[in-house]
């Protein structure tokens, strides 16, 4: 009998550690990037709100300050850490963006906690990767909200502050339902509060929130904006369609749906908000196995079948939606927003350059990343 009990305990230990250690390793895995020539400073978001200092909510802010004074733009990726083209755009910019005039702030992991584990039951791989001329780049696959390890318990119903709108309990951990945030609220609310403080203190002109959405969800392949950002977004949408040959329609920010960045940043600050959604077939529920290949290529037989019934919101064929196209769209839209804003506001103009859609699609994403083993260790960034 004692032997049987010991076997039982052995089974428990085996299952806990065989299943748990890969999760622990993923939580502690550091993504590697090389500091590009445009980065002039790095600081923590807690600079604007002490309430997140030393917590898992604190995150790095990379500054690209030009030689000349000008406007200021904040680019946030990783609001939803499972929408991977957003983070890859930020990492692409860390190594390739240069600013001649004005200042650009880039946050690669806005919801850092969310990047530390996948969606429970979602079947996603723990990591995603792509090839470069010198090897493989590997990143943590994250979840939509903060990890429950970091923000717990969930309420029965999430009551949005300050509008008191009742939202799903799960959105208490969602940094795109917690704007404009509050200093003593949930950790998600404290993150957005810190970002709001940053926008007010730094007088940020434009805030861009990068996302990715299912191809069976209507709000995909688009720019979501409130009225105050609409003219610029319209110019951006028309410009990329004419010059870079990709579609990206406009979606109005609903005034009755609270907590979203494109709604609250506009309502509670002078900053112009923009939210970009690239099409991410890997996020759809009907796909086959959630493999790295699916995440990177967007190719899936079930989605292809669905496209024949006209139930997708983007054009779709055997070529899928490659990461190059998704990151390329994000990069071009961000650069075009800056350009259009500068044209309309010459006193707050910025001059920024970085890779755009045609170049990224042609050369491949991997060609824009430097081999960390070939650079001075002081230039290595760990995220």
């Amino acid at each position, binding site marked *: *009998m004692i032997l*049987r*009990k010991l076997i*039982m*305990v052995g*089974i*428990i230990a085996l*299952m*806990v550690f065989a*299943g*748990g*250690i890969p*999760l*622990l390793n993923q939580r502690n895995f550091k993504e590697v990037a090389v500091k590009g020539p445009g980065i002039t400073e790095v600081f923590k978001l807690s600079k604007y709100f002490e309430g997140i200092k030393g917590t898992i909510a604190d995150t790095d802010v990379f500054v690209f300050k030009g030689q000349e004074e000008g406007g200021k733009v904040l680019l946030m990726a990783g609001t939803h850490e499972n929408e991977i083209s957003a983070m890859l755009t930020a990492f692409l910019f860390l190594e390739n963006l240069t600013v001649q005039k004005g200042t650009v702030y880039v946050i690669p992991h806005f919801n850092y906690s969310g990047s530390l*584990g996948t969606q*429970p039951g979602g079947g996603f791989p723990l990591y995603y990767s792509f090839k470069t001329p010198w090897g493989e780049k590997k990143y943590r696959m994250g979840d939509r909200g903060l990890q429950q*390890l970091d*923000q*717990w*318990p969930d309420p029965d119903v999430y009551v949005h502050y300050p509008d008191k709108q009742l939202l799903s309990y799960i959105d208490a951990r969602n940094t795109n339902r917690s704007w404009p945030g509050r200093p003593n609220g*949930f950790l998600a609310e404290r993150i957005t509060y810190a970002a709001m403080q940053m926008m007010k203190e730094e007088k940020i002109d434009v805030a861009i929130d990068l996302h990715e959405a299912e191809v069976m969800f209507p709000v995909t392949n688009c720019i979501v904006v409130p009225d105050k950002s609409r003219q610029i977004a319209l110019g951006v949408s028309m410009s990329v369609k004419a010059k870079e040959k990709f579609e990206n329609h406009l979606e109005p920010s609903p005034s009755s749906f609270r907590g979203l960045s494109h709604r609250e940043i506009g309502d509670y600050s002078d900053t112009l908000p923009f939210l970009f959604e690239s099409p991410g077939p890997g996020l759809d529920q009907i796909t086959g196995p959630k493999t790295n290949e699916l995440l990177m290529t967007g190719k899936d037989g079930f989605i292809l079948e669905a496209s024949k019934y006209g139930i997708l919101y983007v054009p779709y064929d055997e070529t899928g939606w490659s990461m190059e196209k998704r990151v390329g769209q994000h990069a071009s839209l961000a650069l075009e927003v800056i350009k259009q804003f500068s044209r309309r506001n010459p006193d707050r103009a910025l001059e920024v350059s970085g890779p755009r859609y045609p170049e990224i699609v042609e050369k491949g994403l991997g060609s824009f990343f430097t081999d960390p083993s070939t650079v001075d260790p002081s230039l290595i960034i760990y995220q």
Partner: protein
Amino acid sequence: MMEIINVVYYIIVAVLAVFLFKNLFKEKNLQKELMYVLTILPFLLRLFRFK
């Protein structure tokens, strides 16, 4: 407040895990022993902060 609830939660998880182990060792029915093995798993995953 959330921090206090969190600490209390971990204490509850630990206490329940101890009771589950105790019941596992007292149990004589193989099927029920296996049920305890499965039941203990999420408690330990949370206690070790794996997920």
